[in-house]
C-alpha cells in the first residue's frame, strides 16, 4: 500500500485501525503495553494494601473518604468511557465530525473528573492535614490515586493533540489507529478507576 493510499483511502475498510501493518503493530503493541501497565497498577495496589492501616496517628481511610464525591467522579469517568466508544463507532463509519464531537465530550468529562480529583486532594490536605508526607498511608494513597490522575491527564493531552492535529484533514488509515489506541488507553484508565473505587474507597469506608 503506498503512502497516497494510506493518507487518502478510497474507502474506509471495516476495521480501519488494523488495515495497515503499522496499524496492526500499533494495535497489538498497545495491548501488550496495557499488560505492562496492569502490572504497574497491581504493584501500586499491592503497596497501598500493605500500608492502608499505617496512619501513624493521622486520619484513617474511614474518617477521610466521603463516597458522594467519589461516586460522582466514578460516574463521570464511566460515562466518558461510553462516549469514547461512540467516537470509535463513528470512526468505523468514517463519520469524522461525529467522532470529533464525541471525543470532545470525552475530554470534557475527563477534565471534570480531574477537577474533582484536585479538589478532593486539596480537601484532604487542608481539612485533615493528610498529605503525601504525613503517614505511610498518605504516601501510598497519593501515589496510587495520583498515578491514575497522571494517566488521566496524559490521556487528555494525547486525545486533544490528536484532535488538534487532525482537525483539518479528516480520517485516514494513518491516523485511524492513533485515535483507536488513544481510546483503548482511555478505557484502561477507566478500568483502573473502577478498581481504585472498590479497593481504596469502598473497602476503605466499609473496612
Amino acid at each position, binding site marked *: 500500500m*503506498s*503512502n497516497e493510499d*494510506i*493518507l487518502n483511502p478510497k474507502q474506509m475498510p471495516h476495521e480501519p485501525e488494523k488495515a495497515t*501493518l503499522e496499524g*496492526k*503493530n500499533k494495535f*497489538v*503493541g498497545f495491548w*501488550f*503495553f496495557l*499488560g*505492562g*501497565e496492569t*502490572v*504497574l497498577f497491581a*504493584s*501500586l495496589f*499491592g*503497596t497501598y494494601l*500493605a*500500608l492502608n*492501616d*499505617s*496512619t*501513624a496517628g493521622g486520619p484513617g481511610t474511614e474518617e477521610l473518604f466521603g463516597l458522594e464525591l467519589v461516586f460522582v467522579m466514578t460516574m463521570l469517568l464511566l460515562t466518558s468511557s461510553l462516549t469514547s466508544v461512540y467516537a470509535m463507532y463513528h470512526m468505523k463509519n468514517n463519520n469524522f465530525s461525529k467522532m470529533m464531537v464525541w471525543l470532545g465530550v470525552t475530554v470534557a468529562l475527563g477534565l471534570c473528573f480531574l477537577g474533582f480529583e484536585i479538589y478532593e486532594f486539596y480537601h484532604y490536605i487542608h481539612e485533615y492535614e493528610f498529605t*503525601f*508526607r*504525613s*503517614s*505511610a*498511608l*498518605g*504516601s*501510598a494513597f*497519593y*501515589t496510587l490515586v495520583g498515578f491514575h490522575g497522571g494517566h488521566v491527564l496524559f490521556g487528555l493531552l*494525547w486525545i486533544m*493533540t*490528536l484532535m*488538534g*492535529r487532525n482537525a483539518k484533514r479528516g480520517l485516514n488509515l*494513518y491516523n485511524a489507529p492513533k485515535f483507536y489506541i488513544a481510546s483503548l488507553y482511555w478505557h484502561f484508565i477507566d478500568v483502573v478507576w473502577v478498581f481504585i473505587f472498590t479497593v481504596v474507597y469502598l473497602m476503605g469506608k466499609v473496612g
Partner: protein
Amino acid sequence: MSTAVAQKKGFGAFMWDYLTTVDHKKIAHLYLVAGGLFFLLGGLEAMIIRIQLIKPDNEFISAGLYNEMITMHGTTMIFLAAMPLLFALMNAVVPLQIGARDVAFPFLNSLGFWLFFFGGVILNCSWFMGGAPDAGWTAYAPLSTTSPSHGVDFYVMGLQISGAGTLIGGINFLVTIVNMRAPGMSYMRMPLFTWTIFVTSTLILFAFPALTVGLFLMMFDRMFGSVFFDVAAGGNVIIWEHLFWIFGHPEVYILILPVFGVFSEVFATFSKKRLFGYSAMVFATVLIGFLGFMVWAHHMFTTGMGPVANSIFAVTTMAIAVPTGIKIFNWLFTMWGGAIRMTTAMLWSVAFIPTFTIGGMTGVMLAAAAADYQYHDTYFVVAHFHYVIVGGVVFGIFAALHYWWPKMFGKVLNEKLGKWAFWPFFIGFHLTFFIQHFLGLMGMPRRYWKFLDGQGLETGNLISTIGAFFMALGVIIFVWNIIYTHMKEPKASADPFDGRTLEWSIPSPPPFYNFKQTPLVRGLDALWIEKSEGKKAMTPAEPLGDIHMPYGSIIPFVMSLGLFIAGFGFIYQVDNPVWLSLVFIGMGITLGSMFVRSVKDDLGYHIHKEDLEKGDGQL
C-alpha cells in the same frame, strides 16, 4: 588538507547516521558497543573487588568505596552489560530469523537504545559526582533510603530511565514476532532463539513495571519526603524487597532464556542435526517463563515470611529444575549421533553444559528453604549466581558473538584467537567461583569488605582472586581478536557455518532492507530444508516489488537526552530548589519531542523495484 576534511566529514556523517538510525542491525551495533564498554567497566570493578579480598584484613580500598564497587559491579553487569548485549543479539538476529525487514517499531527501537544508554551514563556519572550508590544492587530499604550521599539517587534515576528503554524494547520484540513473521513461519516453526526472545520479551513486559514502581517509591522517599520505607511513620521496608524480587527473579530468566536460545542454535548447527525435542524445548521455555513469576520470594527465605510461604516458594522453585533439566538433556541428545564441529562458538556452548549444570544444582540446593538459612547471603550464593550468569549468560554471549559475528559485521572471528580467549576465561572462571561455594559454607557472608585472619578463608580467597586474573586475560584476548579480525580476516560468505535458519540465506552483512523478497518458510530450520533439497536459496513468497522503509530520526536521542537532563534536576533539587529548573527543561525537551513526533507524519519511503534490480549484482 582536502582528504582530512573529507575524513572529518565522513566521521561526522558516520556519527549522525548512528545517532539517527532506526535500522535494527545498526541498533544492534550500538547495543553491542555500549554493552561491551559497560561490561569492561563492570569487569574492572570486579577485579578491584577481588584484589581487595586477596588477603585477610586488606586495606586496598576503603569500606565505603568497597560498597560502591559491589553495588556498581552488580548493577552494571546486570542492567548495563548483560541486558544490552542480549538486546544486541535480539536486534541483530530476530528480524532476520523470522524473515522480516525490520522490527515492528523502528523508531521505538532507537528510543529504547538511547534511554538505556543515557540511563547507564547517569548511573556512572555518580562516580564523579560525590560517590556511587552503595546499598548493593538490590538496594534494600532503609539502607538505600537513608544512604547519605547522592549515590542511590543516581541508581534510582539511572535504572528508571534505562528500565523504560528495556520495557519499550520488550514490547517491540513481542509485536515484531507476533506480526512480522514471513509467510509460512508458524509459531512452531520459529527458530528456538526467536522463541526464547518471545518469552523473554513477555517477561520484560510483566516484570519491569514492578521495578518501575519500586524505583518510584524509593525516588519519592529520597527526593520528595514520602514515607513508604520509614517505619517511624508507619512505612514498611519489606515492600521494597517484594517489588524488587517480583522484578528481580524474572530478570534472571530474562537473562538466561535468550542464551538458551543461542545454545540451541549453536548445538544444532555445529552438530549438523535438527534440535532434539523442539516442541519440548518450546514448552520448557514457556514453562520456565511462567514459573519465573511464581518464585520471587525464594530470595527472601530469611526475611521472615513464615514457614508456609517459605515451603510454597521452596517447592515452586524446585519445580523450575524440571524444565531446565529437559533442556540440558535435549541439548545432549541434539549432539548425540551428530557430526560435531568444535568451533569456538561450539566450544563456549559445550563448556556451558557442565558449568550450568553445577549452577542449576546449587540452585536446587538453595531452593531447599531451610538449608538456605545457611546459604543465604553467603559466598555460596555468590558462587551460584555467577555459575548461572557467567557460566550461562556470558558463555552464551561469547558463543553467540562468535556465531553471529559474520552476520553482524561480515567477518568470521579468528578461530585460533577465539580458542585462546576461551581457555583462560574458562579455567579462570572455575578457579574464581568453584571455591566460593566452600567459602560460603565455611561462614563467609557476601558483600564483606574484609575477612578476618584465622577463619580458614585465606586460601580460598587467594585462589579466587588468581582465577579472576585469568578471566581478565581471556577478555583481553577476545577484544584483541575483534581488532585482529577486522584488520586481517577476509570477508565472510553468506553462510559460513552451514547454518539452518533464515539469517544465513542473505548476505553477511545483510543489505539494509534485509530480504529483497520475503522468503517462504516450509518448516523448522527453513534454510536447511531448502539446502537438503539441493536448492541454493529460499523460495520467495512474493514477486519483486517496492520495499517500504522507515526514515531515520534524531528524536529518540533528543527525547532521551531530555530525561537525562531532568534526571540530574531530580537528583539535585533536594539540595537546592533551583535545580528544579533542570527538571522543567529536561521534561520540556522530552514532552516537546513527543509532541513533535505526534504531529509530524512519518510515513517512510519506498525503495523502488527498479533500484533493487539494479543493485542485484552488488548484493
